[in-house]
C-alpha cells in the first residue's frame, strides 16, 4: 500500500512516472525528519531539470507499490526495521531490477544500531556483495555537483557507504543524518549542522541532489568524461548544459 503525504503542489501531477521520493513506512521511527523530504524535493525542482512529484510517497513493507517508485529512502533514528522474508525478498528483487535504495541513518552516532542493522540486512539480501566506503572518485560525488566533503546534520563519517552491482551502486548508506540537515519549514531549519553550520547544510543539499541524480543517471557523468575522446575533433562548444 502506498500513501501520499501532502507536499508542495508546484506542478500538475502526471502520475508516478516522474521522480518521486518514496520512503519506507515501517513500524517504529521511520520518519524522524518529518518535513525534510518535501523540502528537499522542492530544492531538487528549483536547482535541476528534474521535475519531481511534489508529494512524498510512503511504502509499507511488503507492498507491491514499491515497484512503482524506483527510488526508496529508508530512514530511522532507532533500530533498522525487521522485515519479514516476503518484504525482504521484495526489496531484493526491486534492487536487482533497477530500483535504488538510499538509507539515511539519523542517529548521528558512529556504527549505530540502525547502521549495523542496515548493513546486516542488505548483507543477508545480497550474500557475497560488500557494503563498503565509496571512493572519492565515485560518480556519486560528481553526478551534479563536485562534492569533496561528505556532509549531513553531523559529520559522523567522511564518506558514504555503498554496495556495487554490475557497474552501478544501487544502495547508498549515509551515516550523517542527511535528511536532518533539510528538516524545517518556512520559519527555519529544525537542526543545526555541526560542525560546519550553514555551509555544511548547503553541502548537504548538494549531496542529496547528487544522490537523486545518481539514482536517475547512474554512471552518466563517468561516461561523459570519455566523450571528448569519442567525439574526436571536438572544437567549439555551444549551447546550454
Amino acid at each position, binding site marked *: 500500500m502506498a500513501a501520499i503525504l501532502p507536499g508542495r503542489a508546484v506542478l500538475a501531477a502526471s*502520475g508516478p512516472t516522474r521522480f518521486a521520493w518514496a520512503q519506507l513506512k515501517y513500524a517504529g521511527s521511520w520518519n524522524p525528519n518529518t518535513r525534510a523530504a518535501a523540502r528537499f524535493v522542492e530544492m531538487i525542482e528549483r536547482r535541476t*531539470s528534474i521535475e519531481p512529484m511534489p508529494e512524498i510517497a510512503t511504502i509499507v513493507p511488503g507492498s507491491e507499490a514499491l515497484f512503482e517508485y*524506483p527510488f526508496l529512502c529508508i530512514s530511522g533514528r532507532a533500530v533498522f526495521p525487521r522485515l519479514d522474508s516476503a518484504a525482504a525478498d521484495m526489496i531484493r528483487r526491486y534492487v536487482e531490477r533497477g530500483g535504488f535504495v538510499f538509507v539515511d541513518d539519523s542517529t548521528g552516532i558512529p556504527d549505530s544500531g540502525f547502521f549495523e542493522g542496515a548493513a546486516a540486512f542488505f548483507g543477508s539480501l545480497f550474500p557475497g556483495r560488500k557494503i563498503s566506503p565509496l571512493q572519492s572518485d565515485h560518480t556519486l560525488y560528481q553526478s551534479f555537483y*563536485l562534492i569533496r566533503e561528505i556532509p549531513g546534520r553531523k559529520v559522523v563519517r567522511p564518506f558514504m557507504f555503498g554496495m556495487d552491482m554490475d557497474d552501478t551502486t544501487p544502495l547508498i548508506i549515509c551515516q550523517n543524518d542527511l535528511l536532518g540537515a533539510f528538516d524545517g519549514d518556512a520559519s527555519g531549519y529544525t537542526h543545526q549542522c555541526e560542525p560546519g553550520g550553514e555551509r555544511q547544510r548547503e553541502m548537504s543539499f*548538494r549531496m542529496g541532489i547528487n544522490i537523486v541524480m545518481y539514482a536517475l*543517471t547512474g554512471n*552518466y557523468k563517468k561516461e561523459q568524461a570519455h566523450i571528448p575522446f569519442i567525439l574526436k575533433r571536438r572544437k567549439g562548444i555551444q*549551447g546550454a548544459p
Partner: protein
Amino acid sequence: MIPLRELVFLNADPAWMLAAGLVAIISLASGFLASRGIDPRKRFALFLLRFAALAFVLAVVLRPAEKEDISRAKRPPLAVIVDTSKSMAANSPSLAEAARSSPSLADTARSSPSLADAARGWLESHKPEFERLSRYYRPVFLRVDESPREISGPELSQIDAFSGSSTPLSRSLEAVGKSYPGLAAAILVSDGRDTVNPGSQPPSMAFPVYPVAFSERKQPNDVWIETVDTPPVAFIRTPVDIQVRVGASGFGGRNVTARVCDADGNVLKSAAARLEATGETAITLSFTPNRTGRKAYSVDVTTFPGEASAANNSAQFGLNVVRDKTRVLLVAGSPTWDVKFLRRRLAQDPGIDLITFLILRTPMDMTLVPQNEMSLIPFPTKELFSEELPTFDVVIFDDFNFGPYVPVQYLENVAAFVKNSGGGFAMIGGERSFAGGGYGNTPIAGILPLSIGPSAPGAKSFEPADVHAALTSSGAAHPIFQWIPDKLENRMFFESLPGMTGMNRFLTARPEAVVLAEDTKNGAPLAAVMETGSGRSMAVTTDSLWRWTLPYGGPVGGQGGEGVYRDFWTRAIRWLVHDPEMEQVKCSIPEENVRAGARARMECRVLDRSYQPVGGAKLRGVLSGSGKPVELRWIEKEAGLYEAKMPMFSSPGIGRVMVDVESGGMSVGHDEMEFTVAPESDELMRLGVDRKYLDALAAASGGRVFEAEDASVLKALEETGKADTEIIGSRTDEIWPFWRYLIPAIALFSADWWLRRRWR
C-alpha cells in the same frame, strides 16, 4: 577347405595298449634269452626278426589310422577400393575432356601417364595376389567417386571412366564400412583428395585401410589455392583479414602474388609471398568492406607457365558484412525514470555504442553555485548535430525540448540524416516531446510517423492519465512487438504487461505510417513507425515504458520483465537501422551452393509494412554475373514467397541479384545479395596425391600406406587370412587292412622259429 592329417590308433584303449606292450616286451626278452649260445651276429639277427614280427602284431592289435581335420577359412570381406574421380585422370589422355575447360591441362595430359593409368597397371599386375587372397577373403571391388559402387573383379583393371565429379572420400569409406560388416581391411587406390571435406582430418575406421602409394610418379607442377580462411562475419568500415593458403608443387621459392577483388572485379588488396617448396604458404590480405549485406569476393594467385591447372588459381568466398556496433545518440531533456531504464538497457547491449546527453539543468533553474563546483559541461550541439551526426546510426530524442539548446538548422541535419543517409530516428514521449517540445513546424515533424496537430486552447499536450494500451493488428505481427508468433496471443500478452501512465496528445498517424499500438480509449497512437526517405523513424507517445522492466510480478515477472523491455528496444533499434533480418523483402538461395553448369533457384519473401505476406506482388529482379544481366521470371509459390529459376552459370565467379518489389503500384522494398558460383567440380582444384591425407587415413584406421611395388602388405594379408581359419569336422581312415599286418607277422614268426632251430 584345408585338410590337416595326423596318425591315430583305432584301438587306443590304454589297457589294451599296456597289455600289448607288456606282451611284446616279454616276447622280445624271452626270445633274446632263449638264443644264448648262438653266434652273437646271428643272435642279433634273431632279435631284429622278433622285433619286426612283434611290431606287425602290435599293428594288428592297435589298428593305426590316419585322422584328417577339415578346416575352413572365415573369408571376411576384403575391399579393394578404386577412386574413379576426375582428379585421378589428371595428366592422362582421359583428362582430355576436363582439359577442354582448362587448356593448360592439355599439355600435361599428353605428357605423362596419370594416376588412373598407374592404378590400372597396379590392379592388373596384382591379379594373382588377389586370386590367392580370395582363398581367405571374400574380395569386394568398389569404385568410389560421388558414392561407392560395387563392381566385379574383371571390371577392376578395365575401369576407363575416371569421371566422378566429386570425391567424398571419408564419407565413402565410412559407407563401405557400414555396408560390409566385418570388413577385414580395405586396399585403397586413390589420390587422397577428399573434395567434399578438403583439409579435414580423416575419420577413424573400424577396419584397417591400406592406401597404395605411387611415389615414383612425379607430382604435377601446379600452384593452387588450398583454402581461404575468413571470419564468420565482417564489420563495415572495419578492416577484415582473410588468409589465403596457397599450395604449390614444383614452384617452391618462386614469388607469388595474391589479390582479393570485389564483385565488380576491383582489386581491394594484393600481397606477395615466396612459395614454400613443400606445404602451404599463408598470405594474409586485409581489406575494409564499406557496405553491409551478403557480399561475395574473389581471390586469385599468380599463374605460372607450365602449371597443370590454372582453374585452381582462383577462388570465391562470401562474407556477411554487418555493422560493428550500432551507434546510438540519446538526447534527453531531463533525467527521468524512462531515460534511466532506457540508458541501462542500451548500455547492457554489447552491440550498441551509446552516447547520451542529458539536460541536467535548464536555463530556468537556479544557479547558486559557482560553475567550478558543478560537474556540468556545455552541450556540444555543433559536434553532435553537425560534425559527428553521420557517425551515428540512430538518434533518440527522449522528452527533449530542443528550443533552448539546438538551432533549427541542426534539426534539418537530423532530418537529412534520416531521409538521405538512411539513419534511424525515434522520439519518446513526455512533456517536452512532440507538440510539447515545439516540433510542430520543424524539419523533425517531416520525419515523424505522427503528425503534430494544433492543440486545443489551454489543453496540455501531455495527458498524465492511465493508458489503455493495445497492439493493433499490424503491431501484433510487427517484429518490434513480436514476443509471441501468434497474433492473438501476442496481443493478449501485450495487454498483460504493466500499465502505462501519461501520453502525448494532438497526434495523428500519417498515411504512410504504421501504427503498432494505441490507446483503446480514444484510438490515439501509442507507437508508430514509418519509412522516411532511405531511413526509418519511430514514435512512442508515452514516457512510462520503463514500467515493463520493473514489474512486481504477473506474466512478465522474474527475468521476463527485463526480457520484455530488452526485446522491445533491441528489436526497435534493429528495425531502425535496417537490420537485414527485419527487411520486408529478403532474397535467399535454397540450394546449399551454386555451381557452374548446374541450375539454381532464387527465392524472395515479401512482407508488407505490417510484416504480413504480400500476395500478387510485382518483382523485378536482375541477375548479373552469368554473362549479360538477365531479368528473372518470378512465380508465386505461396503467399508472399516468390521463386525464380536462375540461368546456368558457365564458369565459376560471383553472381549478384537485385530485386525491387512493388505491390498495388507502391514500392514494397528492395534487396540485393551477392553469392559465389563454385566450379562445376572441385576435382581439378587439387592435383597430385595428397600423401598427408593418405598417411593420416591409414594411421587413423590402423593400416599403413604401402608403395605400389611393395608386396609385403598383400602377403601379410594372406598370412593373416591363413591363420584365421576354423575346424568344421574330421575323417579317420585305417592305413592298412587287418590282414596286411597279420601275414608279415606270421611269416616273420615262422622264420624266427625255423632259424632258431637250425642255428642252435
